[in-house]
């Protein structure tokens, strides 16, 4: 230990503080979910609909892949369901019982999963979708998806990962953007960024982009 005493103390107390925070978070998570099995049980519950590895699932609705998703995006969407910014009655009911510690635990768990894509998108449209994703359609004022979602479609922060997302889910979201997102006029959220893009894309272009991203690992 060549560190001066004060730095050494600071480092030690910093570690101690971190440990305390972690313990408190876990304690809060297990307290909130007491009697229901905590985080593992909640993850199992999510996977009932989102698929065994959270790779997405085709139920009555296409249910999105959560695996590898950006934690900040997941937390923001859970909040959006609760605040009716994003309309989905099932997810409202799921979300409003989750404690903040549970949301953080779930988001971290889903982030760590990396199953292969669910598949099912038409591969014949993927090349056209790749061009739209990487280059945009400048003549039609459609921005390149890659600018925000990243060249590998992994997303960043509040911007979602699209890689491996379920094909019909991507289509459904883009087609219904203005009806599902940004629905609480008193709370402005980041969904407005996608509005003009979703609006400018034709149905055929939406299908091509969905085919491309749904095949990305």
């Amino acid at each position: 230990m060549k560190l001066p005493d004060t730095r050494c103390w600071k480092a030690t107390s910093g570690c101690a503080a971190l440990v305390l925070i972690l313990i408190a978070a876990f304690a809060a998570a297990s307290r909130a979910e007491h009697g229901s099995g905590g985080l593992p049980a909640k993850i199992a519950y999510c996977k009932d609909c989102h698929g065994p590895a959270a790779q997405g699932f085709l139920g009555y609705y296409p249910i999105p892949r959560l695996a590898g998703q950006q934690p900040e995006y997941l937390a923001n969407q859970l909040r959006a369901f609760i605040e009716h910014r994003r309309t989905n009655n099932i997810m409202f009911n799921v979300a409003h019982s989750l404690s903040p510690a549970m949301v953080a635990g779930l988001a971290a768990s889903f982030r760590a999963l990396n199953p292969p894509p669910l598949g099912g998108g038409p591969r014949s449209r993927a090349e056209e979708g790749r061009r739209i994703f990487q280059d945009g359609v400048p003549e039609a004022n459609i921005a390149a998806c890659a600018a925000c979602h990243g060249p590998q479609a992994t997303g960043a922060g509040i911007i979602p990962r699209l890689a491996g997302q379920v094909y019909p889910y991507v289509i459904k979201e883009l087609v219904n953007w203005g009806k599902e997102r940004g629905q609480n006029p008193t709370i402005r959220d980041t969904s407005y960024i996608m509005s003009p893009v979703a609006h400018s894309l034709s149905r055929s272009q939406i299908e091509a982009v969905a085919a491309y991203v749904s095949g990305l690992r």
Partner: protein
Amino acid sequence: MKAAGVKLALLSGLLALGCAAAVRSHAATPADTVSQRDVAAKLAYCEVCHGVEAQGFRGYYPIPRLAGQPIDYLKNQLQAFIERRRTNNIMFNVGHVLSPAMITALTDDFHKLNPKPLGGAPQDTVPAGKKIFGEGLPDVKVPACATCHGPDGKGNGPFPRLAGQLYDYVVAKLTNWDKERGQVPGKPDTSAIMQPIAHNLTQAQIKAVAAYVSTLE
């Protein structure tokens, strides 16, 4: 027979009018003009990535503020993307479909915008950055940034505005100067001016200057 004759007369009349209009517009103004509606649609498209009022946005990459930028600088950069002097595939695609009239309209609009800085920079290095910006680092041949970018960082002509620019964008540009700018050996451009300066700044100095300019209004 009579109807056909009337049609023919009408058609030739219209043709003559069309030719006269074409000649007149060619003589009076540049042949290429752009409607307010098209400009508004294009601006909305730019703002998808560059943020509300073009104040900059953090997508997968930090996407620069365009608001308040000098017109000459914006025009020169769009030209640089098109000529591959500045490498950026997304902006190449955006730039190469823009007509001269559209570029004039867009750059005028961006220059006039004046939103607050986006923020998000570390504050502790701001004083060090202010000193470098105002005084330079004579020992390592770094001139004061204010000499060209102006004492308030608002830029002038081909020299960009730095005031309110995104911290992480400025850091990325100064760090990668040689790899992104002046990439066509046969077409030297004004980016050569910054080359030795970017080269002589340490990473810590770059971060300090970036933090300072990002706070300027």
